[in-house]
């Protein structure tokens, strides 16, 4: 192979960068119709015409003045890593705002190619964009693409290669008013003499200094020539410079747009009409709740027949294996351990698939941004803004990407609060616990009980946020700016891909960590307490307090006894820290779901646990320590063990308190016992 080049995909949020990245590299990175889907850089490879390309998908950014963490990732990659080619993906239906970034990329002097994306939508809106003129005007190659179908990707790759072998340097195309130019030149002279700045294009750097960009100023402060720079900057009014520079960029863009395309406005589009209704002051929140309920109904009720099928399969499998294997301990391991444990978890695969299908519809349609917008009023009472609501919704799927999604939140305290309360949102892994327990104890009202648990999770998250905002993490609430992307009809294909990806993760988890967990539980439940003289995996040891597990359970039982939990539940909760599904898996092992006629729900309903304890247990599982993966990501994103531990103790304390309340009041007034 002759050459290797690095190609970065940059652009505003939600313009289709990841779609194009997926089309180029054949990956399946997450795509969604809302700004802020991608929050870290992702790499991929593609060979085209004998050139090896390393393609980098970046988070969206409105300008090269970075405010939030995801924007900083994008900007740093472009500036510090100096990719050979930067492809700016541009949303053709929103040229004016997108070209603002173009001006900055050009000033930066990068080798630019513009992918004029969403060209299908441009066409259907009846707008015509003259690519040739645009190319001529900007002196940058422009290629039309449709990211979601992969149209135009070939042409884009050809252009990238052509551009990368072109040695000319472009940039510096925009002229500003006289006094700005004078200052910029003064600064450029200073910068060029100082090797400290050799890394940065001096024209761009000096304009950024004039705009008063915090990040750039901080960098400049580290240099020896800073006094000279300060001298120039002290003699001007930074605010006026900033707005004048921006105005002139927009002026140039508008001038160009008038020649390049015919824009028709003043038309109430479908999106606008829907938004008038769903963001209505009175109806917005009720509509949001109704849609959540609809998604919820599908996730739980529609899944029932499929769950029953899996249940029947595992019951059959259990019988067959037990009858085939004559070695006692082996048959116990497979029947009572693996099949009962993993089977109890796999039953919930249909729920998981449907849950992620629903979330994908929500993301692809663009409604998720509206949800954030509607909730902004509620959120601002708490002292956060609507943006913090998006991670909370994502959290219904899995808390880990949800915590990552907080990177789009600019204010670091807002972000920290959001990270700390996201684990209270009930994720897909906790759902098996509810379906199991609510199904066993609440029959027809199971749906209402589960919905209430989800609501409780949100309530606890919001109240905790308010509490933190009022005490340890005080701060101002910032104005809320959020782009509302146009609605799109979600495609079945993207829903199924999403569902399939998550389904695979669930299956892998069931075959990996959950299997390991239940085998561990089985093993500990089979080993007799040293000195007791019992036999490994024998009937009078297995799953009793004479087993090692039983001994551990008895040791921690006093901690949870006030909640009505026995040692089995205590052990299940302990192992559930690894992954929440293991709570169900270990209960399957410990309550003998493998040997019994009934499945786990049947055993519990028949009296192995009281409904009141079941309710308390659901509340506890909702709020206590998040899983390992989640703890890991909290640590990484907060960068602090202190806050991670705070989350763990706070959550577990709350879980204990609420479960205590449920059990004690319930048993006092004789409810559900």
């Amino acid at each position: 192979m002759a050459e290797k080049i690095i190609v970065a995909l940059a652009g505003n949020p939600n313009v289709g960068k990841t779609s194009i990245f997926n089309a180029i590299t054949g990956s399946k990175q997450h795509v969604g119709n809302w700004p802020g889907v991608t929050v870290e850089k992702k790499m991929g490879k593609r060979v085209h015409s004998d050139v090896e390309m390393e393609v980098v998908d970046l988070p969206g950014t409105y300008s090269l003045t970075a405010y939030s963490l995801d924007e900083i990732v994008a900007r740093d990659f472009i500036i510090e890593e100096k990719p050979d080619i930067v492809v700016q993906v541009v949303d053709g239906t929103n040229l004016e705002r997108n070209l603002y970034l173009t001006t900055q990329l050009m000033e930066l002097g990068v080798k630019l190619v513009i992918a004029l994306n969403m060209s299908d939508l441009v066409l259907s809106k009846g707008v015509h964009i003259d690519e040739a003129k645009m190319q001529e005007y900007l002196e940058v190659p422009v290629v039309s693409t449709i990211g979601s179908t992969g149209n135009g990707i070939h042409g884009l790759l050809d252009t990238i290669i052509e551009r990368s072998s072109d040695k000319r340097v472009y940039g510096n195309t925009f002229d500003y008013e006289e006094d700005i130019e004078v200052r910029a030149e003064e600064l450029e002279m200073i910068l060029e003499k100082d090797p400290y700045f050799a890394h940065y294009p001096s024209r761009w750097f000096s304009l950024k200094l004039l705009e008063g960009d915090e990040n750039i100023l901080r960098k400049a402060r580290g240099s020896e020539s800073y006094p000279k720079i300060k001298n120039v900057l002290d003699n001007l009014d930074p605010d006026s410079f900033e707005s004048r520079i921006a105005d002139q960029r927009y002026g140039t863009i508008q001038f160009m747009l008038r020649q390049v395309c015919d824009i028709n406005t003043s038309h109430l589009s479908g999106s606008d009409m829907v938004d008038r209704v769903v963001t209505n002051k009175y109806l917005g929140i009720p509509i949001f709740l109704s849609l959540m309920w609809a998604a919820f109904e599908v996730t739980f009720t529609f899944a029932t027949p499929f769950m029953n099928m899996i249940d029947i399969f595992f019951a059959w499998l259990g019988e067959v294996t037990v009858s085939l294997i004559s070695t006692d301990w082996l048959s116990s391991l497979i029947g009572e351990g693996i099949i009962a444990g993993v089977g109890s978890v796999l039953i919930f695969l249909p729920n998981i698939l449907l849950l992620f299908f629903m979330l994908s519809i929500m993301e692809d349609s663009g409604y998720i941004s509206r949800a954030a917008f509607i909730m902004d009023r509620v959120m601002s009472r708490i002292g956060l803004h609507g943006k913090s609501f998006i991670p909370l919704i994502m959290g219904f799927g899995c808390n880990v990407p949800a915590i990552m999604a907080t990177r789009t939140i600019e204010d670091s305290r807002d972000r920290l609060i959001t990270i700390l309360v996201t684990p209270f949102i009930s994720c897909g892994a906790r759902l098996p616990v509810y379906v199991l327990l609510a199904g066993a104890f609440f029959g027809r009202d199971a749906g209402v009980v589960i919905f209430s648990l989800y609501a409780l999770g949100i309530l606890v998250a919001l109240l905790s946020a308010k509490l933190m905002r009022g005490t340890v993490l005080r701060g101002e609430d910032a104005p809320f700016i959020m782009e509302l992307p146009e609605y799109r009809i979600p495609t079945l294909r993207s829903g199924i891909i999403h569902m399939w990806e998550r389904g695979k993760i669930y299956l892998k988890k069931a075959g990996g960590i959950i299997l390991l967990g239940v085998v561990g539980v089985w093993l500990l439940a089979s080993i007799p307490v040293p000195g007791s003289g019992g036999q490994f995996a024998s009937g009078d040891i297995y799953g009793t307090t004479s087993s090692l597990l039983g001994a551990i359970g008895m040791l921690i039982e006093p901690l949870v006894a006030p909640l009505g939990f026995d040692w089995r539940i205590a052990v299940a909760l302990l192992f559930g820290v690894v992954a929440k599904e293991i709570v169900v898996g270990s209960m399957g092992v410990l309550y003998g779901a493998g040997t019994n006629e009934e499945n786990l729900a049947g055993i519990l309903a028949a009296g192995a646990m009281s409904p009141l304890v079941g309710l308390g247990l659901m509340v506890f599982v909702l709020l206590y320590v998040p899983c390992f993966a989640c703890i890991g990501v909290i640590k990484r994103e907060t960068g602090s063990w202190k806050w991670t531990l705070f989350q763990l103790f706070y959550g577990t304390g709350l879980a204990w308190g609420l479960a205590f309340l449920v059990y004690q009041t319930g048993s006092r007034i004789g409810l559900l016992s």
Partner: protein
Amino acid sequence: MNYSYQKKEALFAALAGVLYVISGTLHIVEGLGADTGFAALLFVQADILGGFCLAVIGMVFLYGLLEMRRGIKAGMSFAYVGILLSIIFMAVYLLIMGGNLLDSFIVPGDYEGWNIMESLRPGIYLGLLSLMAAFSWKGRFSSNGISVREEV
């Protein structure tokens, strides 16, 4: 602009609005334990949250009616979105109905004496009304979603 164009929407919004609010309320009343006597006749089941959703759809229609009566043309948006929502809910109830049917084959023991009509809900047959409206107004739903010709 054509006056009858608006009038049809207003009429539909009034009708659908009232029907949805009533059936939503009946669901809620049943859910609170009262027997309205409509359960057998109109397939209204005890379902507080489902009833809330139907009532919300009804309110969307009625809100649109209110705006249209006040001469705000964009009030039509509410009629269109109401139609959209009621079709979504019809789809949800149909899915559940299909799920029940499938389940009755898988675990027949749990479904003795059950027949499919027990899964019929107002959300389904009222949805038909919206579906009809959507079809007869199809011309106004462009590829960009829903569009209106007049300016606001």
